[in-house]
């Protein structure tokens, strides 16, 4: 499994398609972390939203680095597609964790502001919730599920927009809580309760992706 993750990481980094979403994230976080952007929970909410978009793009990029023939060779070498998909998810998650660290750290570096003990945990939970939902959307819109890139892009846009803007969706609920408070401790229980939902969505998306991709082949 470690070997597969190393291989996927190496092809992803050599493929350079990860750069666009990573740069987009850094630019977005740079803007949102500026001097007049208000209390930390609100900034973290915005960064998490950007992370959802970028994690989706990143996951699609990680999967599309290997074209189908290439993937076939890897699947034969790994004796089955499950491990190959798991390695892809692991690499996307590694990138998302890296972005989470940037999303949490950059606002503090760029502009010193009051910080409470609950700010970082609440921000981290919001980032991880959005990362897992972004990974889930990315999997469902990857080449393994939707072959035509145009449709995949439109579907990804629709799903990401729905996840962020639909009233009552986990990120939307959390963002509203974070934007309307300057005490992160208030939203910490909500954030902690929502993260398992995000992880469950990711697990379901992974299973759907696996089932559809092996039916396609």
């Amino acid at each position, binding site marked *: 499994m470690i070997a597969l993750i190393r291989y996927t990481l*190496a092809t992803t980094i*050599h493929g350079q398609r990860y750069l666009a979403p990573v740069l987009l994230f850094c630019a977005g976080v740079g803007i949102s972390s500026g001097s007049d952007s208000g209390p930390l929970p609100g900034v973290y909410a915005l960064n998490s939203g950007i992370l959802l978009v970028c994690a989706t793009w990143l996951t699609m990029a990680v999967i599309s680095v290997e074209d189908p*023939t290439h993937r076939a060779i890897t699947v*034969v070498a790994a004796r089955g597609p499950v491990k190959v998909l798991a390695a892809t998810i692991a690499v996307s998650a590694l990138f998302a964790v890296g972005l989470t660290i940037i999303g949490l750290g950059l606002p503090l570096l760029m502009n010193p502001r009051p910080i409470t003990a609950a700010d970082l945990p609440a921000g981290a939970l919001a980032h991880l919730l959005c990362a897992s939902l972004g990974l889930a959307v990315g999997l469902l819109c990857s080449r393994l599920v939707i072959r035509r890139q145009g449709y995949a892009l439109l579907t990804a846009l629709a799903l990401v927009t729905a996840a962020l803007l639909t009233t009552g969706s986990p990120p939307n609920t959390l963002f509203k809580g974070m934007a309307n408070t300057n005490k992160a401790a208030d939203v910490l229980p909500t954030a902690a309760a929502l993260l398992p939902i995000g992880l469950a969505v990711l697990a379901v998306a992974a299973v759907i992706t696996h089932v559809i991709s092996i039916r396609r082949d």
Partner: protein
Amino acid sequence: MLSVEAVSKRYGGGNWVLREVDLTVEPGAVVAIVGGNGSGKSTLLRLMVGVSRPTAGTVSGRPDVVGYVPERFPPNERLSAAAYLEHLGRIRGMNSIAAAERAEELLERLDLQGGFDAQVRTLSKGNAQKVALAQALLVPPGLLVLDEPWSGLDADAHGVLATIIAEVAAAGGAVVFTDHRESVTRANATRIHRIHDGRIAEATAPGRAIVEVALTQSGQDTEDPGWDEVDGVLTAVTHQGQLFVRVDRDHSDALLTIALRHGWSIDSVTPEKAAP
């Protein structure tokens, strides 16, 4: 023993690519599958290695170690040949050092041109095909599946590939390959299946007569005439000081003349039995 039973395949709601295909490949067999473009050859191979699943029927008895060489090695691989093979070796359970050594050994044997450390996408089609072949052989395969492996390979590599196929079969591995050229399939396969319109025909033995000639160097003056280049030669392998050349019966007399003229001594001439 790999067995494909009553396998049919179609993609989505499209036409049937394969219909009711039955095929068994026992260890040590070299099976050629011939057929025109779009006859379902590649699909059958994908089903055998487990990349693709049959719509109906079953594929069973697949060995643990399968080597798969697709028809075209993807042109976008940015890793170097050595790094790619090392990664795939590790995925197959080798440690880094063993994988790197094995990769180098295979690439040297296949005579990869363009550098082991050059990105695979910068290599020519034939050299990329050598990398694809090497990844399938990192661990000696119980089943080696090759989709048009000769396309793009140069003449030297043809001989090496023929030898590799014979070695895998001799070690108890099963080999399945496709090619559209009669001469190639006849020379290398113990059994030939024709596939047409998604249906597979009963096996035919390659209709050929082959002679194995054993030669030794008789003295200092012995020269190497370039055995792989001689007409009718299928493989030329050195084993314990003896050179074994498998040659088409029609060309064996000419080969013997060449051998004598270059100072070789003929130890034996054995007609090879056609496979049942």
